């Protein structure tokens, strides 16, 4: 287990190196640069600007400089927001995005599994049909439709929840709508996934054995069925977490949430090279760590897996 962990953690280094290198050169290939403007900058002034950002150096030299800076934890200043450091955007936005994503994920897993269990145990009854209909809606309707509908109903019409903005202004209630919007799709997938796998497990021999031993139905479900049935859900958590973190860009925009997603999109549009790189690195680290956690949890749930 320890060796497995060390190996996995060490493998992050080459992965990150590849990600940084590829992104660094890919964004430089995109047409236009951080100083393309509708009101074009006169060439002499542009020259001054490029010099002040060391962008007059050869690209490979810029890459080595950047790599050196990143190793010391310096992501540099933003090209667009000249007096702000990339690390400011991350330290301010990441806690917001992670808490929004985390709440959405917990919500999706908890409700998804619950609905999955109920559906499976009441297969082909009204509970099953209505739950699965909601799941189909969740899978097929995108966040940018769900979000505004929730805003319309719960903020504009009923006035129960804030339309947008974050905890600092609107209190804890500000989390509800964005988290619900963000988790809806994943809730739906998890509900369907857990329903299917519970149904499968229910028919397996070891459950029949458990029942034959005379165990109570609740014990059979809680102890034997769930443990086996949750494996596909856990496998899905890695991609779900990535999806939630990346997908939060849309939700952050709709609900004016001050996370890392909105600046990321703006940075891409503005070709704010340093900010894009900073965001790519942060997203990558978060996703790699999430996958690592999923792998470890998997081992605890499934005795057939061992770490070598």
């Amino acid at each position, binding site marked *: 287990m320890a060796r497995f962990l060390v190996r996995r953690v060490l493998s992050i280094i080459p992965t990150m190196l590849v990600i940084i290198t590829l992104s660094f050169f890919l964004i430089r290939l*995109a*047409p*236009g*640069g951080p*100083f*393309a*403007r*509708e*009101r*074009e*900058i*006169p*060439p*002499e*002034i542009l020259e*001054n*600007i490029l*010099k*002040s950002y060391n962008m007059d150096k050869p690209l490979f030299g810029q890459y080595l400089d950047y790599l050196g800076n990143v190793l010391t934890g310096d992501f540099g200043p933003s090209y*667009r*927001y*000249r*007096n*702000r450091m990339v690390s*400011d*955007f991350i330290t*301010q*936005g990441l806690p917001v995005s992670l808490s929004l994503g985390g709440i959405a994920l917990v919500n999706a897993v908890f409700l998804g599994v619950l609905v999955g269990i109920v559906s499976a145990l009441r297969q082909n009854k009204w509970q099953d049909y209505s739950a699965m209909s909601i799941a189909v809606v969740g899978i097929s309707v995108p966040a940018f439709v769900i979000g*505004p509908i929730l*805003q*319309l109903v719960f*903020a*504009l019409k009923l006035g129960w929840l804030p*339309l*947008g*903005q*974050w905890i*600092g*202004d609107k209190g804890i209630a500000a989390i509800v709508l964005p988290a619900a919007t963000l988790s809806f799709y994943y809730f739906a997938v998890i509900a369907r996934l857990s329903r299917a796998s519970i149904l499968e497990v229910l028919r397996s021999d070891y459950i029949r054995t458990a029942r034959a031993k005379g165990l109570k139905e609740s014990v059979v479900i809680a102890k034997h069925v769930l443990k086996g049935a949750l494996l596909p859900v856990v496998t899905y958590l890695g991609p779900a977490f990535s999806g939630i973190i990346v997908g939060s860009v849309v939700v952050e*925009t*709709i*609900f*004016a949430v*001050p*996370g890392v997603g*909105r*600046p990321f999109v*703006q940075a891409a*549009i*503005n*070709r704010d090279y340093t900010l894009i790189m900073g965001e790519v690195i942060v997203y990558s680290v978060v996703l790699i760590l999430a996958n690592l956690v999923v792998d470890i949890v998997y081992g605890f749930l499934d005795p057939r897996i061992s770490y070598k």
Partner: protein
Amino acid sequence: MKKALIVLTMLAVALSAGAQTFVMNNGAEIESLDPAVMESVTSHRVYMALFEGLFISDPKTNAPLPGMATKYKFSSDYKTVTFTLRKAYWSDGVQVTAQDFVDSWIRKLDPKNAFTYADLLWDIVGAQEFSTGKGTAAGVGLKALNPTTFEVKLKNPTPHFVQKVVHYAFAVVPMHAIKKYGADWVLPKNLVVNGAYLLKEWRPQEKMVFTPNPKYWDAKNVKIKELVLLPIDDVNTAYNMYINGDIDWIDVVPAELMDTIKLRADYHVGPEYGTYYLNINVTKKPLDDARVRQALSMAFDRTVLTNTILKSHFPAFANVPPSAGYTPPKGTGYNPEEAKKLLAAAGYPGGAGFPKFQLLYNTSSNHQKVMQFIQAEWKKNLGIEVELINQEFTTYLDTKSAHDFDIARAGWIADYLDPATFLDMWETGNSQNDGLYSSKEYDALLAKSRTQLGAARLKTMMEAEAVLINKDMGIIPIYYYQTQAMIDLSKWNGWYLNPMNVHAWKFISPKK
């Protein structure tokens, strides 16, 4: 009873506090708190809260009103302008002096600082040389004659210089604080300002909160007790928050809801000093033929476009929007018959043999509607085929500045309230001149206008524009922009539609 009274009092206090808080959706994050770094409408609004230059913008007309300067005087040749400053103070109590202006403008021009918009100061003697590394700071024509007298030497007679100094590129910055804190002077805790407001709080991506600056020279006329600017970029969310009463002023509304919104009493729309047009690459055949360009301009109906398709803006046949003393040329008008004749005269009767060319625009549903309309009109009226190319914004800017297009859509909103902001762009070699239009006659008239004053100057500029539009059709104007806003004027005084869409905060006050 006592309890009820307390509740009532608290309610009254809350209500009165609410009435004096003004919330505006600024639509995006600002580039910086440093006026020299600012380069957007978004930042300009923050600038107008925190800083004040020599002159500020009249809330109705955008004409210059006294700010840090009380008056100005031009020399008889209009090549020297002397500003008299009022006794005003920075928020830390230090006096704002003429030397602050000299040092701030030198800082803006300094090539080491590499500030955008430094070129707006190039009217000043030696300014262009200094900012392009060919001259020295000492060579720039700026002088503090005494603490309250600031003299500026200009390359040419520039009577509209006073209009220009309203722009934030001409800001005064607290040099004493910059010396003390270096680059950190823009951190909110170190920020020293001379405007109507102080920055109380800034939570990036969330909001900026401003409170009145007690050291501001006109503090008694600053009526909004708390000014809040939000950076919400989702138009629908901002609109819903406005409807919900969370926001007092939005300046963009969802286009899909236009039909309902425009019936509302709190929706305001008026002409803006800006033009939407087609940039033509005049070096490419057959677009190098003025007759072809004229035919293209005549062959689509701008009235249908603005009234039926866009449901906003005003048809334009010239580059400069009309203003007091300036009547733009008539242009081609809509005349498909004449267009056909011109195209035939250029060698393409009925569009036969006309090479297929590309119409470039940046991805947006609004631009797409305009371009599709023009494409269809040209096909119907001239029988020519156009391919629409849309590119993501920055890519489009890159293609345009590389002159790698046939025809590209473009837009220009005035930097300052004078026709020169529109005409200078088409001078041979100007960095905005992406279509490479070049006319000796036009350049000569523009140069002549720079040596003239008043009505004579405007007349020469009108002649120059007549060359650009009537004779050469160097660009194809489409519409003059309009400004729009939603704000409940039964609650707020001092807010007016104006052509530059510039609204200094100190004029807005709650209605009693």
